[in-house]
């Protein structure tokens, strides 16, 4: 074995250790994203493993100045959408489906768009987690991915656009329509959740 080969082997060893550390550190977050996309533990574990293995294969292309979670989220979402298109077994709402606007009532004025959840909202969120997950699974995969990346993972539109290889305008549209569809699905099951009296 030549000196170059030995140096290459040592470098590879260091990269392997670095990657193992990243797997250990981010496994839970990556699994959480996978679960919110797939909706069940078995598929989530498979997707997590495949995403890490693909990330390892292309680890030489990873830019260490960028967050690892963004990079692997991109790998996972592409993997997931490809796999979903291949299977096409889960029922979804059509992208073209139209939703009617609801009748409005008196509302309080808001100084900032997102003042944060109230304790009541947090309690309700836990109570309705299954309904939300079930509703997520009925969205088209592109909508579900955009909504999960934005609201569950907390990514910006720019980051999501980069992860999903699309424009910010498309991301904005997918998130908006995804949320509206999801809200309508949950509202059918729990109408009281979006009543005005309940909002105050």
């Amino acid at each position, binding site marked *: 074995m030549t000196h170059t080969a030995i140096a290459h082997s040592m470098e590879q060893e260091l990269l*392997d250790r670095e990657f193992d550390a990243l797997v250990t550190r981010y496994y839970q977050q990556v699994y959480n994203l996978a679960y919110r996309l797939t909706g069940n533990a078995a598929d989530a574990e498979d997707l997590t493993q495949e995403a890490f293995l693909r990330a390892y294969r292309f680890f030489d292309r990873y830019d260490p100045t960028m967050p690892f979670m963004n990079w692997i989220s991109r790998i996972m979402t592409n993997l997931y959408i490809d796999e979903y298109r291949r299977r096409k077994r889960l029922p979804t709402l059509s992208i073209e489906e139209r939703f009617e606007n609801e009748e409005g009532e008196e*509302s309080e004025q808001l100084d900032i768009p997102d003042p944060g959840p109230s304790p009541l909202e947090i309690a309700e*969120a836990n109570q309705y987690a299954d309904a939300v997950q079930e509703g997520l699974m009925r969205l088209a995969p592109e909508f579900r991915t955009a909504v999960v990346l934005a609201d569950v993972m907390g990514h910006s*539109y720019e980051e999501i656009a980069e992860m999903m290889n699309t424009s910010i305008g498309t991301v904005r549209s997918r998130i908006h329509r995804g949320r509206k569809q999801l809200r309508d699905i949950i509202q059918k099951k729990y109408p009281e959740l979006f009543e005005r009296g309940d909002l105050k």
Partner: protein
Amino acid sequence: MNCRYVQSRLSAYLDMELTGHEHQLIRSHIENCIECSTEFERLRRMKHLLRQLPVVQPSQGPEAVLARLRTQRTAVSQTAVIRVGWRSTRWWQMAAGAAAVGVFLWWNSTVAETRSEATFAASSPAPIPFRSSIEPSLFRKPSPLPSEMFTPVPFNQPVFSSPILPTNYYPAANSTPSFEGLYHTFYFQNR
């Protein structure tokens, strides 16, 4: 700015993803429009339901991933050893050598033979009797001349006085019949 336009921007407004000017426009519209403010509030609730989803705990840790990575690395390193081995033995030089030997053998068995025969037959000033003293190639098995194929038998010669043929003219008992043997048998039987 109508309600349809505002409502299409409500999620982006909620996520603080609009420019400063557009953000202000949407905000002032919501403050004065009951329908849009209600729609906005419902979207905000939806977002909070999503944001408050609990973090799902996996049933197993990263061990399965790490084990698969180890398996993959072992396979890759074995492939690398094979590659390095091939590189050190300079397989391409061996292949070139084998090709050269092959070309030499082929040339010797076909081209050289043809050339030597042509040379002896045509361009030699004093033709040496072909096959009588010189073999054109070491690799060529001499083939019998047409005159040696069989001894011609005069048509009017009686059967009993048929010439004694070379021993190799008669097929061995356990061999498959040759064309010459069959022809000869037929020839003498029908005389």
